């Protein structure tokens, strides 16, 4: 277990550094912060003072070394905009995104297991075809279109839901979650259905039936547990996609999460905050992948045996 974690951590270190490097360099290609933060009529000397104060006058490679040195000491720099530590800003925005992604994922898993299993239990029935059609549609609709249409219908025309922001009521959650939910729920339903169809026709299901197991036992105990592995793979990918997809949805709905923070930081050339946000997201995705691998081992003894050798 510990060996496994250590191994995963070391193999993930290189991609993390690569992400860091990429973001660092790309951010610096967006332009000069001095042009944005100082008044339009600022003199060259004023700009120079600003750059020197924020370390932007140094060659890029030196800025990078300084930054990496800071990261090692868990110092992620300060925001140009607010002067706050960048890490604090990222961590403050993070829970909002996490709540959104987690709620969406839980809903997607529940919906897909129920609909996917039901459809798989009666392959090619009317219910199955309806489920396939709906899940295919849900998986194909672009989220920005969903978001805008949702706002137009429910917020503008009917006026029952807020257009954006977070308020005390749960109503503000409805549109962002609905927007995020369509794709994962659709994709996952198809995966669960496929995995369940093959699990339900497997020899071990026949054996279970021959013991006198009822449908509930056959579906939930025997088939679902076996269908979980392929579903888990896709669910993991979708969860990663949710953390990333938050950028679009949070911008549209003014949701104060990490996605919105990233967009704002890019627009304002707030490099330190952008890097902190991206790093936090990357670490989250790494943790997510480790959790998924642990789930595999938990679900299937064959994976455990292989991991031990």
């Amino acid at each position, binding site marked *: 277990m510990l060996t496994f974690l250590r191994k995963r951590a070391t193999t993930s270190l290189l991609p993390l550094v690569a992400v860091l490097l990429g973001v660092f360099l790309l951010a610096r290609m967006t332009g000069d912060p001095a042009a944005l933060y100082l008044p339009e009529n600022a003199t060259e000397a004023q700009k120079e003072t600003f750059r020197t104060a924020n370390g932007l006058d140094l060659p890029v490679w030196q800025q990078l070394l300084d930054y990496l040195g800071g990261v090692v000491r868990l110092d992620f720099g300060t925001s140009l905009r607010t002067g706050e530590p960048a890490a604090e800003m990222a961590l403050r925005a993070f829970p909002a995104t996490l709540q959104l992604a987690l709620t969406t994922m839980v809903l997607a898993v529940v919906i897909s297991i129920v609909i996917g299993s039901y459809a798989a239990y009666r392959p090619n029935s009317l219910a199955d075809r309806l489920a396939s059609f709906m899940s295919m549609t849900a998986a194909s609709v672009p989220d920005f279109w969903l978001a805008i249409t949702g706002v137009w219908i429910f917020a503008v025309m009917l006026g029952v839901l807020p257009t954006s922001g977070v308020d005390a009521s749960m109503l503000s959650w409805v549109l962002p979650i609905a927007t995020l939910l369509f794709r994962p729920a659709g994709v996952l339903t198809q995966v669960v259905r496929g995995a369940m169809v093959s699990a339900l026709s497997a*020899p071990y299901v026949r054996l279970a039936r*021959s*013991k006198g197991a009822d449908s509930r036992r056959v579906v939930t105990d025997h088939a679902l547990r076996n269908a979980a592995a392929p579903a888990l793979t896709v669910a993991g990918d979708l969860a990663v996609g949710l953390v990333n997809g938050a950028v679009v949805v949070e911008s549209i709905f003014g949701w104060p999460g990490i996605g919105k923070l990233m967009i704002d930081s890019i627009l304002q050339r707030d490099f330190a905050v952008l890097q902190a946000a991206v790093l936090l997201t990357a670490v989250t995705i790494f943790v997510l992948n480790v959790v998924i691998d642990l789930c595999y081992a938990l679900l299937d003894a064959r994976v455990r*045996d292989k991991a031990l050798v």
Partner: protein
Amino acid sequence: MNADPRVALDVDGLDVDIHTPHAVLRAVDSVSFQAVRGRTVALLGESGCGKSMTATAIAGVLDPVAEVAGGSIRLSDGAGRVTDLVSASAKERRELAGKDLGIVFQDALTALNPVYPVGTQLAEPFRIHRGLSKRAARREAIELMRRVGIPEPETRVDAYPHQFSGGMRQRLLIAIAVALSPSVLLADEPTTALDVTVQAQIMSLLRDLREERDMAVVLITHDLALVFEQADRVVVMYAGNVVEEGPVDDVFGSPGHPYTRGLLDSVPVSAERGASLSSIGGAPPELSAIPSGCVYQDRCPLVRSLCREQRPTAREVSPGHRSACHFPDEVSSEEANRSVEVTR
């Protein structure tokens, strides 16, 4: 039909249809046989003859494309109550499955659920039918593992299927099938996937369990030697039909159907080195092209016009020995001729 209380399973006129996108094919055509407690009846035939389909139809685990189209399957439970599995409700069937009717599947390597310890799977019949607690069912599972000859059952009970050898997995499947001492045990090619030495052990285990639990065993196989060693009666199937049925000694000693005769001649027992092995020419008909008249006509050395016009019904050739051939006497006489040739 038969009042004999020892008859545990009475299959009468069983039809099974397969639904394909283009047609409905009859895979099992009015198959009848009985299984008696303490005895073994063998369903013998080539692959595709419908013997496994018959077994899965009896066990109620047919593939979704197949369906019982007629006949009856009367199962007598431990208390002597008889239920027709064809007309029974799904709930009634579930209550009998595993309790009064056990089945050992062919594919021992994949039949066990890979994600559960074997103990959980062995305990399931006790949990379902006797409502035992997890702990009590686990004790039963350990006892069962000991009974079927799995070493160190106390520790192996928590192991997973992939941690067992093929022979051990087949023992586990047998253990599950006999867990509640059913009146009928269906064994669908139980040793096909196993080594010859393991095969002998498994067959002797099945035999012991049959005696110990007074079960009627239905052995589905293509192996003539296995039938000869294990079975009391044999039902020979061809293209979904029963062509001959009777006590093993009678059927093998003086076959009443040319197909049985062909099978027996194909066994290379009396062949000498250098002599060519005998085989039945041609191949069984496709299910979509089963001829009217006798099902065996295209491969039969005795075929004549009557065989092409009329399907023979099973007739008794000697007490308890029936053959679905128009000319059963000629099979025997030809047999006699051949024996002379061999000895000369």
